[in-house]
C-alpha cells in the first residue's frame, strides 16, 4: 500500500480550526482565570451542585439514547406518508430557545396542562412536572430527537447488501449488523447529550423545583454576576472541563470502530421486524414532539401577525447571523472531519464542555481593551455560535467522511486523484445529506441562541431571541408568544431548507 486513503485529504485547514476551537474554549477560560484572585475553594454547596449536575445529565442522556433506539429503528424500517416531515420535525425541539420549549412542555405536562386535564377527566391523581423527573423529561424532549437523527443516519448508512445477505442466510441481523452499528454511534451520541445536559441552567432550575436542582452552570452564573468572583467561576468551569474529559475518555473507550463493508451506495430496504412495535414507537415519539410544539403554535398564532416592525427587523438580523454562522460552521466541521485524529476529536467535544458564560466573559475580557464589545456583537455571535454548533455538525459529517474514505479511498488512490478531484468528485457529492443536515442544525441553533449576544449587544443589534426575551421582560407575554412562534417557524424553515437541500434525490 503506497498511499493510505486518508493521505488524500488536506490536513492543514483542520489544524487551524482545531486551534481556533482551543482558543475560544480553553483560551477564554484562561482569560478569566488571569483576571481572577483565587481566594475560594469549592464548598459543600458546590459539591452538591456537581453531584446533581452529573446525575441528571447521566440519566437524561441515558433516557434520550434508550428511547431513541426503537424510534430510529422504526423510522429506518418503515415507509409511510409524512415520514420525511416527521424526520425533519425531529430537528425542532433541539432548536428552540429554552424558555419557549419549557413553556411548551409546561402547557402539556404542567399543573394546568393537557396531560393533567386528561388525568383529571379519567379520575386519576395529578402529576407534577417539577423535580428531577421534570428536568429529565425536558432534556429528553430536547435531545431524544437529536439522538434519533444521529442513529438513523447510522442505520441508513448500512449498505442494503448486508441486510439482504443477512436475510437470505437467515442470520441474526441484530447481533451482526445493528449492534456493531450502535456501538459505533451510541457512545458518541450519549456523550453529546450528556455534555449538553451538563451545561443546563435554565431548564434544570425552572423545572427542578428548587435549589436542590442547582447545576454547576448556575453556580458559575452566581459567581460571575452576583459575587463577581472570577476565580470561583474559572474553577467551576475547569470542573466542567474535567467532567467532560472523564466522560469523553469513557465514551471513546466503549466505542468500537464499525465493521466496514463497502456496498453499492444504495438505500436500505428491510423486511424484518415487528410492525406493531414500530408503529407504537413512531406514534408515541411523534405525540411527545408535536404536542408541546403545537401548544407553542396555538399560543402564538394570534399575536404573530400583529408583531411590531422591530421584531421583523430583529428576525432578519437573526437570519443573517444564522446563515453566516452556519456557513462558517459547516466549513470548519468539514475541515475537521477531513483531518480526523485525536486533536480533532477533542476539538469536536470541547465546545460542548465550555460554559457559555465563561466563554462570553473571557471573550469580553480579551476584546474589551481594544474595541467596544457592542461594535462586535454580531460578528462575535456568528463566530461563537459557529463554534458551539461545531460538535453537532461534526458528528453529522465525520462518520460519512470516514465511510467515504474506507469505501472509495482505494479507488481514489488507484486513480492517483488529486486532492481537489477527490474532494469535489468523490467526497462532497456523497456528503450532501450530512452537510445539509449539519448546516441546518447550525443555522437553527444560531437562530435560537441567546448566549453571547446578551452580553455584547448594544442598542441596534437585537436578535429575535433577545427581542422575545425583552418582550417577556416588559410583561408583553402575548407579543412574546408571537415572537416565539416566529422564531420557531424561521428556525425550522432554515433547518428544513438546508436539510431538504441535502436530501434531494436521496432516500433519507
Amino acid at each position, binding site marked *: 500500500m503506497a498511499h493510505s486513503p486518508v493521505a488524500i485529504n488536506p490536513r492543514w485547514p483542520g489544524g487551524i480550526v482545531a486551534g481556533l476551537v482551543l482558543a475560544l474554549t480553553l483560551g477564554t477560560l484562561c482569560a478569566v482565570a488571569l483576571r481572577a484572585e483565587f481566594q475560594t475553594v469549592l464548598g459543600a*454547596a458546590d459539591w*452538591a451542585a456537581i453531584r446533581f449536575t452529573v446525575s441528571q445529565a447521566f440519566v437524561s442522556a441515558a433516557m434520550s439514547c434508550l428511547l431513541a433506539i426503537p424510534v430510529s429503528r422504526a423510522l429506518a424500517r418503515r415507509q409511510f406518508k409524512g415520514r420525511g416531515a416527521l424526520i425533519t420535525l425531529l430537528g425542532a425541539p433541539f432548536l428552540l430557545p429554552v*424558555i419557549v420549549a*419549557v*413553556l411548551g412542555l*409546561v*402547557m402539556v405536562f*404542567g*399543573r*394546568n396542562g393537557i396531560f393533567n386535564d386528561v388525568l383529571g377527566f379519567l379520575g386519576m391523581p395529578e402529576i407534577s412536572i*417539577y423535580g428531577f423527573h421534570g428536568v429529565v423529561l425536558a432534556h429528553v424532549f430536547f435531545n431524544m430527537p437529536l439522538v434519533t437523527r444521529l442513529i438513523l443516519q447510522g442505520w441508513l448508512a448500512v449498505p442494503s447488501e448486508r441486510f439482504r445477505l443477512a436475510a437470505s442466510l437467515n442470520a441474526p441481523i441484530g447481533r451482526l449488523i445493528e449492534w456493531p452499528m450502535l456501538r459505533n454511534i451510541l457512545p458518541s451520541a450519549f456523550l453529546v447529550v450528556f455534555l449538553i445536559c451538563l451545561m443546563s*441552567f*435554565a431548564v434544570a*432550575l*425552572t*423545572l*427542578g*423545583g*428548587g*435549589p*436542590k436542582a*442547582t447545576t454547576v452552570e*448556575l*453556580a458559575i*452564573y*452566581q459567581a*460571575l*454576576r*452576583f459575587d*463577581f468572583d472570577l476565580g470561583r467561576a474559572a474553577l467551576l468551569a475547569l470542573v466542567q472541563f474535567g467532567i467532560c474529559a472523564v466522560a469523553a475518555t469513557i465514551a471513546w473507550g466503549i466505542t468500537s470502530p464499525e465493521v466496514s463493508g463497502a456496498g453499492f451506495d444504495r438505500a436500505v430496504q428491510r423486511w424484518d421486524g415487528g410492525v406493531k412495535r414500530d408503529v407504537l414507537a413512531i406514534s408515541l415519539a411523534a405525540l411527545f414532539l408535536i404536542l408541546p410544539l403545537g401548544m407553542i403554535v396555538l399560543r402564538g398564532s394570534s399575536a404573530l401577525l400583529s408583531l*411590531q416592525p*422591530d421584531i421583523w427587523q430583529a428576525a432578519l438580523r437573526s437570519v443573517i447571523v444564522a446563515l453566516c454562522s452556519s456557513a*462558517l460552521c459547516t*466549513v*470548519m466541521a468539514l475541515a475537521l472531519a477531513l483531518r480526523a485524529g485525536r486533536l480533532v476529536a477533542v476539538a469536536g467535544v470541547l465546545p460542548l464542555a465550555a460554559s457559555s458564560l465563561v466563554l462570553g466573559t473571557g471573550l*469580553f*475580557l480579551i476584546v*474589551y*481593551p481594544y*474595541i*467596544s464589545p*457592542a*461594535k*462586535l456583537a454580531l*460578528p462575535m455571535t*456568528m*463566530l461563537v455560535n459557529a463554534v458551539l454548533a461545531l460538535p453537532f455538525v461534526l458528528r453529522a459529517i465525520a462518520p460519512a467522511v470516514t465511510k467515504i474514505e474506507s469505501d472509495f479511498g482505494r479507488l481514489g488512490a488507484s486513480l492517483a486523484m488529486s486532492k481537489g478531484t477527490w474532494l469535489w468528485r468523490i467526497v462532497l457529492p456523497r456528503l450532501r445529506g450530512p452537510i445539509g443536515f449539519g448546516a441546518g442544525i447550525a443555522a437553527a441553533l444560531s437562530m435560537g441562541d441567546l448566549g453571547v449576544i*446578551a*452580553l455584547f*449587544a*448594544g*442598542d441596534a443589534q437585537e436578535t429575535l431571541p433577545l427581542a422575545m*426575551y*425583552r*418582550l*417577556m*421582560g*416588559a*410583561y408583553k*407575554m402575548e407579543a412574546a408568544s408571537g415572537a416565539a412562534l416566529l422564531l420557531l417557524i424561521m428556525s425550522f424553515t432554515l433547518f428544513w431548507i438546508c436539510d431538504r437541500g441535502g436530501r434531494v434525490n436521496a432516500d433519507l
Partner: protein
Amino acid sequence: MQKPIILTAAAAFAMATPAIAETPVLTVLTYDSFTSEWGPGPAVEAAFEETCGCDLQFVGAGDGAALLARLQLEGPSTEADIVLGLDTNLTAAARETGLFASHGITADLDLPVSWDDAEFLPFDWGYFAFVGNKGAEPPTSFRALADSDIKIVIQDPRSSTPGLGLLMWVQNAYGDEAPAIWADLADNIVTVTPGWTEAYGLFLEGEADAVLSYTTSPAYHLIAEEDDSKVAWPFDEGHYLQVEVAGKVAGTDQPELADKFLAFMVSDAFQSIIPTTNWMYPAVTPQDGLPTGFETLITPAKSLLFSADDALATRATALDAWRTALSQ
C-alpha cells in the same frame, strides 16, 4: 475565517468615530429592560437629547446584577459615564469598587423611606409583593401563606434581583426565624426560576396561584391590557422595598453632561415616563400625579428595607439558610 469579519468591523468602527465625535456622547450603562423598545429608554433619550445638545447612548447589560458585573469587568477604563439600574442590594458592592463619584444632587424625593446617599440617587422604587388572581382569598402574611395550600413560584436569589429581594424581605421581617419560615414555605413553592421572566410566564400559564413580583404589576395588566384580574397581596409584616438608583462614574470624560443627566433624572420629564414604562413608582411624583390606575394598587402600611451595608452583610448567611431550608 473570523479575521476578515473582525477587520471589517474594526474598519467600520474607525470610519464611524470622527462623525460621532462632533456631538458629545453620554454613555449610560443600564439593564436590558430599561433600554428595550418597551422600556423607558427611548422616551428618556428623546427627552434628554432635546435639551442637552448631546447624544445619549444606552448600553444594555442583562439585569441589575449583570450591570454591576459588567462594570467590574470593564474596570476604571469603562466607557460608561452613568450607571443606572442598581438596587440597594447591590450598592454596597458597587461602592466598594471605588468607581463611583458623588452625585451632589439634593432632590425632594418621594420615597417611603428617608434617603441619604452621596453616590447613588434613586430614580424609581417599588414594593415586592406576591401577585395573584382576583377572587381567591389571599393570605395576609408569610406565616398564613406557609400554612395554606396556596402554590407560588419564586425566583432564585442567586441569579435574580427580585429573588434576592424576597430573600431580604423574609430576612428583614423574621430575622432569626427566617429559616423556619422558608422551611414551612417549601411545600408552597412550585418551583424556583432563574429570573423574573420565567416565573411570571409560569404564573400566567396557570402553574401557580401567585408569583413574586411587585405591587405595581397589576397596574400593567389594568392600564395596558384593561385586565383587572390581577391583584397584589398585602402582607401584615410589611413589604420590602426595591429602590433603583443611578450613579456617576468617577472616571467619566463628560462630568458636566453626567451631572446634567442626574439632575434631569429626578425632574418631571424623566419621572413622568417611569410609571407606565418601567411599571414602578417614580422617585419624585410628577406634577400631574400618577397615571390613572395606580390609585387601585395596594399601599403597604409598613416599608421594609435593609441599609446597603446591612444588605451586603446579611446576604451570605440568609442565602445559606434559604438553600438549606429548600433543599430538604
